[in-house]
């Protein structure tokens, strides 16, 4: 399972922890619609429930996102994966890894958990087929040792879905 893959993470820096506290407060006041933060006392790992948007292929389905924050968040992107079972989507691998540029190369420190969630829901909503990426089996096999998606060199080839 990739769910508990990153165990030896460094603790959040002061800056990271301050910023996350602010995000958490903002989330409580103004949560992105369709998402529910499962409250724990762990600021460094958020588990978020995603409800498929009505009128899309994923309507009435619920999935779980796991967001792990690095020591130097927000200078570095968080690691975001779907907990199993991951939704069937051309950019989501069966191990929960998500092929989405803002989670890797195109990350910016002005993005927030909330904005990531909205991007992921938008990616789900624009899908026209429920299927795995073509290279799913090969990729998942390569990640068997618990590799983080952040260590993958992603190739972003499709901006339609």
């Amino acid at each position, binding site marked *: 399972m990739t769910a508990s893959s990153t165990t030896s993470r460094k603790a959040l820096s002061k800056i990271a922890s301050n910023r996350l506290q*602010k995000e958490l407060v903002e989330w409580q006041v103004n949560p992105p619609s369709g998402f529910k933060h499962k409250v724990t006392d762990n600021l460094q790992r958020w588990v978020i429930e995603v409800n498929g948007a009505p009128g899309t292929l994923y309507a009435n389905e619920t999935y779980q996102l796991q967001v792990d924050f690095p020591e130097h968040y927000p200078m570095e992107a968080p690691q975001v994966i779907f907990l199993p079972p991951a939704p069937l989507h051309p950019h989501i691998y069966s191990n929960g890894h998500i092929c989405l540029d803002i989670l890797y190369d195109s990350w*910016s420190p*002005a993005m927030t958990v909330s904005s990531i969630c909205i991007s992921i829901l938008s990616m789900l909503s624009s899908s026209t087929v429920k299927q795995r990426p073509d290279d799913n089996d090969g990729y998942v096999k390569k990640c068997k040792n618990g590799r983080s998606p952040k260590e993958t060199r992603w190739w972003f080839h499709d901006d339609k879905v």
Partner: protein
Amino acid sequence: MAFPIELLTLQNLLLRLGSWFMLAAAVSLITLLNRAYVGPEKKFSNESGSGSRPYSSLVQVPVQFVVGLIKLERMPVTKYSSFLEKSEGRFDDSCEEATSPCAVCLALVIASDEVRELSNCSHIFHRECLDGWVDQGRITCPLCRSKLWPDLNNDKSKNSSGDPWRRERMSYLFGEDLCFL
């Protein structure tokens, strides 16, 4: 990629001094290589006409040096209050709010905070928040992704050879007093 640049300003100074040793080594190595290749066949001899001087793009510039130079020269630091005074003419409502949130740390930027003036957009971040991003080797505004400083190759066609760091290499090699552009 995180580059270890905590004591940037101080380090920069030390780097300038220490780097001459590296530089000497690099230059002699490249001259040597040049001789080895160019000697028998004169392959590259008419390329630049600068004789034995190495072509600037062959000399690696330490990332710290480049980042330090960029921060110093391209993104001047100013107090947020004076930034507001300057931009009052451009933005009607900016003078009302002496505070606005920094998109990086989500804390307010208050009048006494230091900010960097960006050349391609008017977004405001705490100096240390933006520096943390630049230290990661990033060169675009966190909010709009426009380049944090002007494109070096914009206004010149000669001598650029598609090397965006030419000026940095040159000033690293020969000092900042010389003007190559």
